[in-house]
């Protein structure tokens, strides 16, 4: 298994390199200019050209690319073109906020979504099923930022229970959790909708299998049929979907961070995009790509835990 993990990580390197190259080119092809973002709109063309030289943007593209890669190999993500602060330390500061948020979303989604999916599948076409389906349809259609604002209106403005501003003080666990409730709930509810739907359909699919009829016909209790035969077999598709939707959730986390002013990667990224902070942007997108690779790896590894037929050679 260790050799499998190592092999997967090695295979990830070219993937990341391709992503990095694409991103490197795309951000530079987009019109707009970081030097103007720094100097403001009153600056003369001359001053802007000078700053571009200072930023190294007048160098040939291949040279900029090579310099960036060299830095990367040495663990140096470079400095933000706009604020001149190291990108690496900014990313490290923001990453925990994004991870806390998405992990909360995934956990909440699995803890609520899987049982809800089982219930709606078992009680197919009953009231509970209809309610569950309406809930998951609503969750699928509602954008994260809108749900976030609705929750904010209810829990912060009307009930004055939870805060709306910021991510809490670093190092103060209670404060961090306090600030995590609403954004976590926002992503968690959306994830619950995805997971409920997926669990329901994969369980329904298995309920129609012959071996379920066999189990029933030999007189097993329905509870045992569901837990031992159905759920165990349904888990593999559920896990793979969980992986895919965790990645989707990272996308939703960007808007959630903006709405709740959480200092995560998403907030950094939106700002870097507006200012054409090439270095910041290419590093951030590479970090996102890295997260996707890691989530996929975890997903694949988790198959082995639920399905003994899966072997990592």
């Amino acid at each position, binding site marked *: 298994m260790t050799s499998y993990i190592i092999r997967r990580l090695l295979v990830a390197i070219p993937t990341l390199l391709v992503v990095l190259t694409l991103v490197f080119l795309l951000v530079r092809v987009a019109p707009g*200019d970081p030097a103007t973002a*720094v*100097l403001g709109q009153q600056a003369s063309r001359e*001053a802007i050209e000078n700053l571009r030289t200072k930023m190294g943007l007048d160098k040939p593209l291949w040279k900029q690319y090579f310099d960036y890669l060299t830095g990367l190999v040495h663990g140096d993500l470079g400095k933000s073109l706009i604020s001149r602060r190291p990108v690496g330390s900014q990313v490290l500061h923001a990453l925990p906020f994004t991870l806390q948020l998405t992990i909360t979303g995934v956990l909440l989604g699995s803890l609520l979504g899987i049982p809800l999916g089982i219930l709606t599948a078992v009680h197919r076409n009953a009231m509970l099923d209809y309610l569950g389906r309406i809930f998951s349809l609503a969750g699928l259609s509602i954008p994260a930022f809108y749900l976030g*604002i609705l929750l*904010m209106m209810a829990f912060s403005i009307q009930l004055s229970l939870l805060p709306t*501003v*910021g991510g809490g003080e670093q190092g103060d666990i209670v404060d961090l959790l306090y600030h995590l409730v609403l954004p976590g709930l926002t992503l968690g509810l959306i994830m619950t909708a995805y997971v409920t739907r997926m669990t329901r359909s994969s369980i329904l699919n298995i309920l129609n299998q012959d071996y379920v009829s066999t189990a029933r016909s030999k007189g097993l209790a329905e509870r045992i049929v569901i837990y031992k035969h159905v759920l165990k077999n349904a888990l593999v598709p559920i896990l793979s979907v969980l992986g895919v939707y965790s990645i989707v959730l990272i996308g939703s986390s960007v808007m959630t961070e903006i709405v709740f002013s959480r200092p995560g990667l998403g907030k950094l990224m939106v*700002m870097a995009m507006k200012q054409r902070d090439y270095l910041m942007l290419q590093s951030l997108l590479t970090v996102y790509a890295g997260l996707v690779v890691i989530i996929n790896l975890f997903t694949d590894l988790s198959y082995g835990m639920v399905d003994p037929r899966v072997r990592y050679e």
Partner: protein
Amino acid sequence: MKGVSRNLYGVLFVVVTALLLVAPGLSAQEELAENQVLDVGVAASDLNTLDPHLAVGTQDRGAVDMVFNGLVRFKPGDMDPEKIEPDLAKSWEVSSDGLEWTFHLREGVMFHPFPGQPDGYEMTSEDVVYSIKRAANPETSAYSGSYDNVESVEAIDDYTVKLTLDKPVPSLLGLVSDYSGGFVVSKKAVESMGEDFTTHPVGTGPFAYENYVPGQKTVFTRNENYFRGEPVLQEVVWRYMPDISSRLSGLRTGELDLIEGLRKQAWIEQVKNYKGVEPVVFGPGETVTLHFNLTREPLKNIKVRKAIVYALDRATINNFYGEAITTPLYSPIPANYLGGLTKEEVMAEGLAYEQDLEKAEELLNEAGYEEGFELDVVITERESYKKTLVVAQEMLKKVGIKINIKQIDHSAYHSQIRDDVNPLVIYVCARFPTANSILTQFYHSASVVTKPTAITNFSHYGDVDADGNGTIDNVDKLIEIARTADDPDFQKALWGETQKEILSDVAAYPITTLGFSFAKKPSLEWGYDLNSTLALTPQIKWNTKLLAE
């Protein structure tokens, strides 16, 4: 004698009674909130830089305003350059030719503490000279262009600074004021801290940097040694919150005291209805102007440009922004800038171009465009820009002119208009409030966007024959003479003349001035009258306070 003292007692009785009656009201009004921490939500994801000579973003300008002082300052809440008052300099003299300026510094002003100087140190002419040189250096300042005419700056003694110019500069005081490059930084702090200075600014202002949490907030704490007095607020927390709904929620839940709002009538109306929320609109506001590219067909023809402006209705465009935040603009320079023409002055010259569709059609016919024409225009997604173009598009349709709008993002828009792609350029800006700044940047031929010296002359005015009489129309000379004129009346007359030329050549069509929109808790008191400020956010001063609710 007896009568006198009885009268005196009588008067005293009345005065004391009146005071007793008024006193409870007074003390209730003045009662301070226990918690003097001001939480401000600004519309940005993070700070860019708190180095005052590089800070151009709205989120940073208000913050550096609290940390630094200039030699002189605009009266708080009032950006009239004629009301500039002493700040770090207690007085100044100017030589008769306007070339030598001598500033006498206030003594005993201390810089905020910083690593290596736990008690701060006294600000002297050395820091002032260093700051002005730094502001004039394009490597260290975004405002260096304004200091081109500064020949030298030297310290005469610890408390005297002499500034020598190679030619007179209009409103020189603006260059050493609490605006852009005028802020005085601590020489020792800049030298010892290097790039850290951008997130740990060290100045002499009422609030000192305390800490910075990336992506979240910067905390400023009161400077107990502030030379005007100990600030009332204990802390000011600058929170970076790009989303308007979360800023508004924060204000409504009481987590925030002051937020940057939306420049929309509807938003202002909406927040008025919320308990404990008070909208704040102030100037100078940003001018919205439509610039014609005089090198493009068919806009080369003055008749076509006139037809366009006669087809437009300024009042309707203003209404689309909403009357709560707009002042219709009739001249290239707003009337509240030094040298700006008022509506009446423009009307008197017949240059207001009030809507007249018949005239517009007539002019189009004369120009040979009976069938109208099409123009492809790119525009940013920003409302303040886009709205004008979209409303104008509808109005121009009526006279057969079709505008094809392509929307791109803001940063891309700014780079494309500088590449001269647009036949029509909508530009929204606020500048130093004298006519010189806008006239130089938008109408001097050296500022034409295709030149190496380019700034923001999108119309190419000054390089082309704008009115079709066979000669090049150019206001460079007028701008230059006005710039160095010593007689203020003569200067204003020249500026007026320049604006009339621009309007009669229809190089640009002034539309509106948009105020800045914020919202605050009613318990927040500025400590001054807020009308307009170059800080772009309400200024937080030493006497700004939170009253008990």
